[in-house]
């Protein structure tokens, strides 16, 4: 895990809630800076609603697993800590998946395997390894929440542009009337397909780097 080297960047291992929150949401944003969890960020962001539910799933899992990994950090044998983390993460992911299937079936069908794949999402495992294992429960929850929010911001931004330019809609509500329905907007299919996600995310990361002045090599986190 590269995250261990992140301590010198400040705010990474510091136990304070506010710094932790700021780091997760902006400073070391899991998607924009660490470029983690890209698979899901590209796959499910065709619409705002998908992005939002996926973000909610990740935040739920990240908070839950961080809490339990942190609670058990002193009793977990080091040799099997990663297996223990995966077991805890998998439990939360499956619980969310079951709830989705029972109470929001259409969304569960649309997200398909991607909810289950949160188990392998580097953000969740990364936070458990890099943060929850060394920090007390409350601040670990904050960290999980912060990373969830950081993920949400990026996913929703990608989803916003993809749904708007790909389908002319936002949350399923028509913003641009597409030509196929007699409107003026020629649907941009590439935005709905995977390349559209790469392009959008690329621009977003460029914008993020510009805003945060992340050209400085010292500030750049590796993934």
């Amino acid at each position, binding site marked *: 895990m590269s995250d261990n080297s992140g301590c010198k960047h400040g705010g990474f291992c510091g136990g304070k809630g506010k710094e932790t929150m700021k780091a997760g949401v902006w400073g070391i944003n899991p998607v924009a800076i660490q470029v983690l969890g890209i698979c899901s960020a590209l796959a499910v962001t065709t619409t705002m609603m998908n992005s939002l539910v996926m973000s909610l799933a990740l935040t739920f899992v990240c908070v839950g697993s961080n809490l339990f990994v942190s609670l*058990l950090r002193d*009793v*977990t*044998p*080091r*040799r*099997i800590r990663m*297996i*223990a983390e995966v*077991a*805890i993460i*998998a*439990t939360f992911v*499956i*619980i969310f998946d*079951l*709830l989705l*299937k*029972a*109470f929001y*079936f259409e969304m569960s*069908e649309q997200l398909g395997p991607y909810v289950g794949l949160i188990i392998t999402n580097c953000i969740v495992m990364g936070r458990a390894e890099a943060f929850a294992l060394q920090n007390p429960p409350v601040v670990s929850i904050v960290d999980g929440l912060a990373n969830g929010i950081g993920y949400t911001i990026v996913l929703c931004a990608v989803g916003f542009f993809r749904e708007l330019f790909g389908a002319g809609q936002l949350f399923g509500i028509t913003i641009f009337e597409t030509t196929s329905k007699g409107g003026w907007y020629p649907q941009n299919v590439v935005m709905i*397909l*995977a390349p559209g996600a790469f392009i959008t995310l690329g621009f977003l990361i460029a914008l993020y780097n510009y805003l945060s002045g992340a050209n400085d090599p010292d500030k750049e986190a590796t993934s």
Partner: protein
Amino acid sequence: MKSNFYTIVYAAVLALVCATALTAVNELTKDAYAANLAAKKARNIMTVLGIPFDASTPAKEIVKISEDKVKTDKARSELYDTPVYYSDHPEYGRLWAIEFSGDGMWKPVEGLLCLRADMKTIHRITFYKQEETPGLGAKIADPPFQDSFQGKTIYDGAGKPGMALTPTGGKGKAHEIDAITGATITSGKVKDMLNTLIEKIAKVQAEEVSDVR
């Protein structure tokens, strides 16, 4: 370093706790999930049979509506070796919806073929379960491809059962469908699974006709 015994006990306890939590959540949600699945099936059947329904109807009610309007033909289900449903359409008379499935390019494909009363003309078709390549084979789930089946026949001009998915299909010949460009394998698999079903239907039809004679 903690002892091996401790590690084993820890792992066992953790596994037990996780499994218990999952079992509990599963028990709590399984009825709602089963209802959702049944509703999905009911929606598919009613769509293919052309029965209008409100898409926002809750799961349990939609199953009731479907039980009311759609009947299962047990005899035919046995003959075709797959569930067969029917309902009476105001315009086309009795419509038959027959489940089919087969291997796709990656994963199994499932769908419903809806035939008109003559057991020859396709009323509609739907592929409700597929995991073909997005943008290529997955087009079998899109309306343009499914619409192209409407009004086609499951017999060729000479009365031989079977459909064809060809690059030039859909231009004139009643049993030919325009195959999906870039999805040769999916198109072939779809053709195969349809023809397996069509052969069964044709065989049963031929026997019925000879019985009447």
